[in-house]
């Protein structure tokens, strides 16, 4: 009997322990501010531990179910940083809305743990369990405001559709399990497919693949599996939208990289076509429908759909170049979304939620700094140089053109042009329209403000000097 090597799993163990400690502290302590501090300390602790356990070589443990490679280390570190910033952004909002911080942060840490598990899973069962840990935590976070009808409705929608998607994913996995001779290990699946390559690809595999792709893109939110995104973005409290809109995307993309590029790479000729169709549909519907939205959360929901379309385009180029640009895109998108939702959270006070685009009218005269920051994030999402959104889109388009898919790149550019309309409309509302509503800034501390400014300026800095982050992303893949 040999015991598994627990060293590479230390950050996960630390996170799980701290979650339980936070639950206990919440039950026995009356001081609620301790919990926020504990949550932040947990994230810092995970960051330090992650650096401590990382090594240049790939580490496997738990019967090769857990993998710690450079991809896992890099994306986990980003997840910690983004979570840390997100917790600081929503801290005041939680108190304003009278959400119990103990429950909120404990469930949030469960969600982050789910992301960590997904990021470093090397087995389909583990991938699935991590996904469930993340999704269940998200359903709970949205529904935490029980008296808010919209929030409970969107939690219910998300829950039922998410459960259906999980069922579809599992059904697909069961077929892959059967067709590869009883393998759930991603590497063994590749090996078994290589061994039986001469006999051609079994129809059962493609059958399972169709279900797996459907389940995966539901989590990413590509058309036609996107219906939950606008409802959930609109219905959930801003604090939760911040988490869903920014943090979860990185884990979802790493999940897809492991599953499709890692496990089912020999079927790439099938799933690239599927993803191509879905990505083009997402770019089209996401951008067109976003124009009709008056609620900024809903608009950002549709904008997410179109951005995820771009991410899926990166997958179609099954090469180091394509995957690097996908990772770069999703990391920078998460940073942008975090800043956007952080600003909206800062503009919400005393039960008022900054939701309608009309609320933002004349923001430049009342709060010039926030208006400027929001303008930067909108321009970055629209892909206007020198902000990072431009470079991220450019990388993906360049990868597409290099593989001869120029017509797809042209289509994506036209769709982003249409998309630029609704981002710039927000800027127009802030700078050129008369004020209709007095927006009060929540009494956030100076540190949060500085963090907001830094976060937004990061878009500019990465946009001008992208090579550092790109080299970093390339190291994950290599």
């Amino acid at each position, binding site marked *: 009997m040999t015991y598994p090597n627990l060293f590479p799993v230390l950050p996960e163990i630390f996170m799980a322990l701290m979650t339980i400690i936070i639950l206990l502290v919440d039950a026995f302590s009356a001081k609620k501010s301790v919990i926020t501090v504990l949550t932040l300390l947990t994230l810092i602790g995970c960051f330090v531990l992650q650096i401590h356990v990382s090594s240049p070589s790939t580490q496997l443990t738990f019967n090769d179910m857990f993998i710690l490679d450079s991809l896992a280390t890099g994306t986990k570190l980003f997840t910690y940083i983004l979570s840390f910033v997100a917790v600081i952004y929503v801290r005041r909002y939680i108190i304003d809305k009278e959400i119990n911080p103990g429950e909120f942060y404990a469930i949030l840490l469960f969600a982050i743990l789910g992301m960590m598990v997904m990021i470093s899973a090397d087995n389909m069962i583990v991938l699935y369990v991590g996904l469930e840990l993340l999704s269940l935590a998200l359903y709970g976070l949205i529904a*935490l405001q029980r008296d808010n009808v919209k929030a409970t409705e969107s939690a219910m929608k998300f829950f039922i559709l998410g459960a259906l998607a999980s069922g579809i994913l599992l059904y697909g996995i069961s077929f892959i399990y*059967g067709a590869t001779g*009883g393998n759930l290990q991603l590497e063994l699946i590749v090996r078994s497919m290589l061994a039986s390559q001469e006999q051609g690809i079994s129809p059962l595999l493609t059958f399972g693949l169709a279900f797996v792709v459907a389940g995966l893109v539901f989590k990413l939110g590509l058309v036609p599996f996107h219906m939950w995104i606008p409802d959930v973005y609109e219905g959930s409290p801003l604090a939760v939208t911040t988490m869903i809109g920014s943090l979860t995307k990185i884990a979802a993309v790493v999940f897809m990289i492991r599953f499709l590029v890692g496990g089912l790479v020999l079927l790439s000729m099938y799933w690239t076509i599927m993803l191509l169709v879905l990505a083009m549909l997402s770019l089209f519907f996401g951008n067109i429908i976003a124009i009709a939205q008056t609620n900024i959360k809903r608009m950002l929901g549709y904008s997410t759909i179109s951005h995820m379309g771009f991410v899926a385009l990166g997958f179609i180029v099954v090469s180091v170049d394509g995957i690097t640009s996908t990772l770069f895109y999703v990391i920078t998108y998460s940073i942008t979304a975090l800043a956007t939702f952080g600003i909206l959270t800062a503009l919400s006070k005393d039960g008022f939620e900054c939701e309608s685009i009309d609320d933002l009218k004349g923001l430049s005269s009342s709060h010039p700094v926030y208006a400027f920051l929001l303008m930067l994030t909108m321009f970055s999402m629209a892909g206007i140089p020198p902000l990072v959104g431009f470079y991220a889109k450019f990388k993906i388009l360049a990868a597409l053109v290099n593989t001869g898919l120029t017509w797809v790149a042209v289509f994506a550019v036209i769709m982003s042009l249409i998309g630029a309309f609704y981002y710039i409309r927000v800027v127009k509302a802030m700078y050129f329209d008369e004020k209709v509503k007095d927006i009060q800034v929540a009494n956030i501390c100076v540190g949060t403000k500085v963090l907001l400014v830094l976060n937004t300026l990061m878009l500019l800095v990465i946009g001008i000097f992208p090579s550092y982050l790109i080299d970093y992303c390339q190291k994950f893949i290599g």
Partner: protein
Amino acid sequence: MDITSILFYVFSAILLFCGLRVITAKNPVHAALYLVLAFVTASCLWMMLGAEFLALTLILVYVGAVMVLFLFVVMMLDVDVESLRNGFWKNLPLALLLGLVASAEMILVILQNPQITAVANADPETTLSNSNVLGWVLYTQYSYPVELASLVLLLGLVVAVALTLRKSDKAAKYQNISKQVSVDSKTRFTMVKMDAEIEQQGEKQ
């Protein structure tokens, strides 16, 4: 046709019929009972495959616990079934079309591939029982996902409590045990000195 295949077809037919009735039964209690029957037949199928432990767990957990709870909820909440069926006929044509296309595609793919090999047979050499082997695998090879599954359960517990427990709810009553234990006669009784009252005959009537 030997007895095993006859049994298989009988159970499968019952299972499919029950599945259909679950979604078509008018009365939700009937639907739930058909689901119970579906679980029992599915567990019979598993029993025939030699998975005794899973078959019994299915009955214990799903029939014994989940469905009983479900029946309670259905009976206690007076669900207006008719309102749930609104739009059924309106949406049926599209749903039927999509369902037929999807199932036709699935059947076509499966028919292409008649040789489906059995995978993951249990080790024929083993003398251990089904549940023994399962436990052995779960706590050695699959210890990591089992640990994670326990965290998922803990999360479910936390979320359920967070969604239902409200300290601020006026209707909720809570016991403070330390206060209850530390009472003595002085906190429970207060002696009030007052004069004896004399009832007046005239007012009584």
